[in-house]
């Protein structure tokens, strides 16, 4: 019995609308099916594809666990899964919508801090003066640690923040914030961009991710040939011509 291709897409918000429009553009319109709550769907003409609607974070986790074979979610969420992410998930294509930057932000009052070298310096001075480390509020722990380590900043600690991260400094819970932009910065914040935004991999545009752990069965008709090489696992959905968004 052939296993269906599980395709996970965002279940709510602007992203959901954008993905549905993109699929329609590609000639693969989504149809709702099964479940009054609308968490499952299908694509006309592809009976072996099950579309599941999940939160963007759950999609990242499902791809990582192999519970979904194909998905659309934020690169920021995928990278949060850790260094072994790239061994398990292949990023097929950046879809170019929902783009945001992940930035390190310091208070506007810190006019002498403009780069990670300044952050490093201030962190050290802070530690020497108070005996405590500078606190960085973020929910992106993995990426924050990797970024700070790349810039040689060690004198800090992360305070995990799952919501309203921007408010942490004003609330006295942290000194710095690492978060995605997308809205206007508050007056009391000044955004610090990483020194080389591109090089730091800080562009979590929405992208197509696919789990490499689950091998698509040959009989499902997705492979061109019988071989087991990575190229043979390219789902047709991604390569279909006529996809106007890229």
């Amino acid at each position: 019995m052939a296993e269906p291709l599980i395709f996970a897409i965002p279940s709510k918000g602007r992203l959901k609308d954008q993905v549905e429009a993109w699929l329609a553009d590609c000639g693969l319109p989504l149809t709702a099916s099964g479940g009054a709550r609308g968490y499952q769907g299908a694509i006309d003409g592809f009976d072996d594809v099950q579309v599941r609607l999940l939160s963007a974070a759950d999609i990242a986790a499902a791809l990582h666990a192999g519970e979904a074979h194909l998905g659309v979610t934020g690169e920021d969420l995928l990278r949060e899964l850790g260094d072994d992410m790239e061994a398990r998930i292949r990023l097929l294509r950046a879809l170019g919508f929902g783009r945001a930057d992940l930035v390190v932000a310091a208070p506007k009052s810190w006019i002498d801090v403009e780069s990670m070298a300044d952050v490093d310096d201030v962190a050290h001075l802070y530690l020497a003066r108070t005996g405590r480390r500078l606190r960085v509020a973020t929910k992106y722990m993995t990426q924050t640690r990797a970024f700070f380590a790349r810039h040689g900043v060690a004198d800090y600690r992360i305070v995990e923040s799952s919501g309203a991260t921007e408010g942490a400094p004003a609330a006295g819970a942290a000194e710095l914030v690492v978060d995605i932009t997308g809205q206007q910065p508050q007056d009391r914040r000044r955004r610090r961009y990483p020194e080389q935004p591109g090089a730091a991999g800080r562009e979590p545009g929405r992208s197509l991710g696919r789990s490499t752990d689950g091998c698509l069965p040959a009989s499902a008709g997705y492979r061109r040939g019988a071989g087991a090489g990575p190229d043979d696992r390219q789902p047709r959905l991604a390569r279909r011509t006529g996809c106007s968004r890229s």
Partner: protein
Amino acid sequence: MRLEPPVPEKALAAIRAPFLEAGASELDAPVLQPLGLLLDLAGEALRERLFVVQGEGGAEAALRPDFTIPAVTAHIESGRASGRYLYEGRAFRVAPRGSDRSEEFLQIGLEAFDADDVAKGDAEMAALAWRAAAAGGRDDLALLLGDVGLFGAFLDAVGLEGPLAARLTRAFASPRRLWAELDAAQNGELATARGGDRLASLLAGLSESDAAAVLEEIWSLAGIEPVGGRSAGEIVHRIAERASLARTARLSREQGELIRRFLAVGDAPKPAFAAIRRLAGPGRPALDKALDDWSRRLRALAAEGVPADRIRFSAAFGRAFGYYDGVLFEVRSAALGDDQPVAAGGRYDGLPRRLGAHLPTGAVGCMVRPGRAWIGRR
């Protein structure tokens, strides 16, 4: 979850014996340590190595990665000026991905808090680590010595001072950063003026108290709230320092070369310290004192029976989890390699105060991992 294979009781007793002879009170440390405290003291880099746990609605804790902080805490709570604590128990560290290290392992160690002769205390601990490690039966051991404070003394000896010396000293714990800082200093790249720095350069031209007042005024006019715990005075002070760094902070080629050669020193102790003396040249009191202390340490190590041909000093030897601030050491086995030391320790005089100690005290300790010391393991 990798568990260490148990060490036979006979071997364990032999490894434990030098610690029992050293004399100390038994420390019974909690397995659960407050996460915030560990991260505050050792930094975010430690988090990857910690097993973090949390009870329902409780504060996050971690399984103890070692016994140092529990020992300091116990000593402070005792209220005594000096004390020695012996511990034996499991510690827990997440292994790096792909490695086969044990994540739950036995440690035996001793921490000493007193205001005694620093060089003598260092040598005693290093010798203790050596004896305990050797009791496990391995014959391929070496004692590697380092000194976090020596770098600062050397910089002083080559005529570096103020912000530049401080900057390089800070970078010592991370080799990559240190080399980057050295290059930047030699190429005059430190504190170059950047766009958007106009306000900072204007403020740098005022006296610090005037500048601080002006900055506060600017904040108020712009509706900027000074969140983040840094006062105008602090910010202005750093601006002034950076300006002075920009004016003065170049390493001459000679200085850069001397520092690089210092960092390259790695040899048996006598030739290593002789080389350092030669590099530094005459007339440098801080370095002289440091080197004299080292002569005394080496004599003490010899008196304690550590074989001279197994000792090596490395000027660049530092440690990532930065609360060590003096002499450091590791006992390494050739069979196990550099990243699995059999025993380790060092001096961390600055830590007790950070944990709230009122009485000034030195702090030095060592620990051995019987699972690695025991030759029967492989």
